[in-house]
């Protein structure tokens, strides 16, 4: 356990030493909210204000970026440069590495979610989530689903470039088709159906819902789908964990 915590805190520390990734991780979502805000800031969307609609969904998008870029692509890089291989002949086990990176991802995500919420409160009169306990549980469930999901998908990549390509593809598809960036009711029926096949759709529904409308108990389907993804991808990620790309 101490090994896992040590790994997790070191990885977190090292993340903050890389200024560029810090910028992209923390500032980019805030800039996007600001950009969207300058376009739709005053609109009323299905009875929700701009911030009530988009801050929760961008927090959802942040889970995707954290899991694919902060976790998946970095771990693929470690695999490629032999960082993981070096652990292979020590008593460190694969679950410790996955757990450490999951922990690091959770810390980084929490900071960026907090930043987004504060920004929304300051600029667009956002209020704290209506069912704050439900929202917190929703966030944990979403991370449990997405972190191993991304770790598994990127571990299929041969190198960092293809991991980045997989990550960008997943992010962009989910960003535009799951209702995170653009409300789904403006989309054709077919896209509304496709959206339901994307995991981010359930995250966005869950976060938006618990933030504004109802407690988590009303979202059994979303929680069920996400927990299903969590279990399946945890199994896949640990089953197919590779120490090196040979």
């Amino acid at each position, binding site marked *: 356990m*101490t*090994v896992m915590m*040590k*790994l997790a805190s*070191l*990885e977190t*520390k*090292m993340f903050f*030493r*890389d200024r560029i990734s810090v910028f992209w991780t923390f500032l980019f979502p805030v800039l996007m909210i600001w950009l969207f805000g300058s376009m739709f800031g005053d609109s009323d969307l299905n009875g929700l204000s701009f911030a009530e609609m988009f801050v929760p969904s961008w927090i959802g998008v942040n889970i995707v970026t954290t899991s694919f870029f902060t976790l998946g692509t970095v771990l693929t890089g*470690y695999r490629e*440069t*032999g*960082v993981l*291989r*070096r652990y*292979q*002949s*020590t*008593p*460190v*086990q694969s679950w410790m590495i996955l757990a450490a990176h999951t922990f690091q991802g959770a810390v980084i995500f929490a900071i960026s979610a907090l930043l987004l919420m504060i920004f929304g409160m300051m600029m667009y009169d956002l209020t704290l989530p209506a069912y704050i306990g439900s929202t917190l549980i929703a966030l944990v469930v979403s991370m449990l689903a997405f972190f191993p999901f991304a770790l598994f998908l990127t571990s299929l990549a041969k190198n960092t470039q293809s991991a980045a390509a997989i990550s960008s593809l997943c992010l962009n598809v989910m960003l535009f088709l799951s209702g995170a960036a653009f409300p789904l009711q403006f989309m054709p029926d077919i896209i509304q159906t496709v959206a339901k096949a994307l995991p981010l759709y359930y995250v966005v529904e869950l976060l938006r819902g618990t933030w504004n409308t109802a407690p988590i108990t009303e979202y059994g389907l979303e929680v069920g789908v996400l927990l299903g993804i969590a279990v399946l991808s945890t199994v896949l990620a640990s089953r197919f964990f590779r*120490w090196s790309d040979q």
Partner: protein
Amino acid sequence: MEDVIIVDQLSKSYGSTQAVNSISFSVRKGEIFGIIGPNGAGKTTTIEMLEGIRKPDGGAISVLGLTPHKQLRELNKRIGVQFQATAIQKKMKVKEALDLFSSFYKTNQKDHLIALLGLHEKLNANFEDLSGGWKQRLTLALATLHKPEILFLDEPSMGLDPHARREMWKLIHVLKEEGCTIVLTTHYMEEAEKLCDRVAMIYGGRLKALDTPENLLNEIPVHYLSFESKELEYDFLISLPSVVNVDVENHTFKLLSDDQQETAYYIFKYCHENNILLRNFRFEKGSLDDLFVHFLEKEQTA
């Protein structure tokens, strides 16, 4: 001497390529054992099977009484490995790496290694800012933190400049004196001669020779005379007493002889009497490099 590694009829193939072909040897406690051969000879595959991270197709391995790929967790507590061309996280500081890897083991000799490897001055440096030599020192330290009973080094001096390489050799010797058994692979023959107590020569996945470097060199005729001359002829040289073989390339002769002193005498005498200029006359002691070429040539003619 007690054997800490016993390898019997070890084989491994990738697809249709037989990377390691029925190799047998054993490593004694406390020695530096070298696995040498050209690139692609099967050295890394062999050492990785000893480390337990690659599963053999056939044959048996015992390392410290364990079957490596089956008892990897137990084995990893007792061995140390420096892989070929691996890195640690770019932004990790030297002291953080030492600290992290120390936490993997019940006991560690961190402070001793920092002193031994002179890592004091680099403790606060990020890994990405270290030179190749310092990177190798650090990864050597990471592999030896827990006082492993056996240390595996895959090409320990690859990419190092001559000075850093000598420093690395010194460190490996110190580790040996501290009681560690060391198994290393290399394709630098000089490294094998300077470092190893015994060497296994691998080529094409097969074990070609196994002995001390001195014995290997004595066993095979690799001592020769070399000189340059524009006037001496092959026919004359081959007719001299004790001469076994003459190679000539660009007026540079390589003369293999059963009695170097006698052959040298005849050459000097003849050149003196006929006023022939000899340049760069040398008694060459063969190196493992020559031995290697010797083996390859034998292979091709066979």
